[in-house]
């Protein structure tokens, strides 16, 4: 069971858990902003650019060591 859960985690989350956490937080923020009656479509594009840039930068730094 533990191995199966680990495999699912590895399959979905992959190398960088921060991406999954960031996406979950961005979706929650989108829901929060939308529920307040404010336009919320811009939250995910900003989050995607930020998350991708940070993750790639971190991986590049790690690869260059």
């Amino acid at each position, binding site marked *: 069971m533990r191995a199966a859960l680990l495999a699912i985690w590895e*399959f979905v989350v992959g*190398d960088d858990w921060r991406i999954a956490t960031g996406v979950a937080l961005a979706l929650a923020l989108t829901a929060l902003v939308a529920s307040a009656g404010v336009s919320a479509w811009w939250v995910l594009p900003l989050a995607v650019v930020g998350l991708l840039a940070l993750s790639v930068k971190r*991986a590049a730094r790690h690869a260059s060591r």
Partner: protein
Amino acid sequence: MSGAEIGLALSVFLACAVEAVEALTIVLAVGTTRNWSSAMSGVGAAVLALIAIVAALGPALTSLPIGVLRVIVGGLLLVFGLQWLRKAILRAAGLKAKHDELRIYAEEAEAARGTGAQPAAFDGYAFAIAFKGVLLEGLEVAFIVLTFGANQHRVGLAAAAAGLAVLSVIAAGAAARAPLARVPENTMKFAVGVMLSSFGMFWGAEGAGATWPGGDAALLAIVPGVLLVAVAMAWTLSRSAPPVIEVPPAVEV
């Protein structure tokens, strides 16, 4: 066919083709060096397992309310797509080794030869390696078929696109009788990462209650926008960091 359906079919076809090329390399390696019938039995068993997964999870996903489905599917696609895109950017920038089917084929064949003489009737090694290779590569495709298909209630269309991609790769492999080293895998992976991230972002935001300006037409801006950002990141990285030689494992996204 709507623009979203074309995007669905194209994304699934590309993702499936690239995974099928990788699975083909593994099956070719164990088939030619060990035992073809055992390797093909492994392929058949893996395909049956994948069909069972899609058949079991497809109806469960499509029965969810559309808002819940879009948040779940959008979030998963976005996480999955960003992982693909991240690796594609690192490969394009020279910071991660590109997939090389000829090298992977040589490594798999060498490993298969190193396990000793195969039994006459059934070769468990060839079966296990072919099964594992097809199942692991196929799981990603099953995930994409399920998420894309369920969200638009077009699991059939997604499965058809996946089937067409597999048949195309099998036909090309049978014609070449060698690993498909000339398929532009890394470019295809870049494209799949862009599509998964774009559709994930679109559906995730809609599921969370946001409304895109222009509705479905927003995808016409989102997809090129994500592509532009990814290309810019790869270009910036390739100019600022020295290339890194890294040998990837045989089975990898």
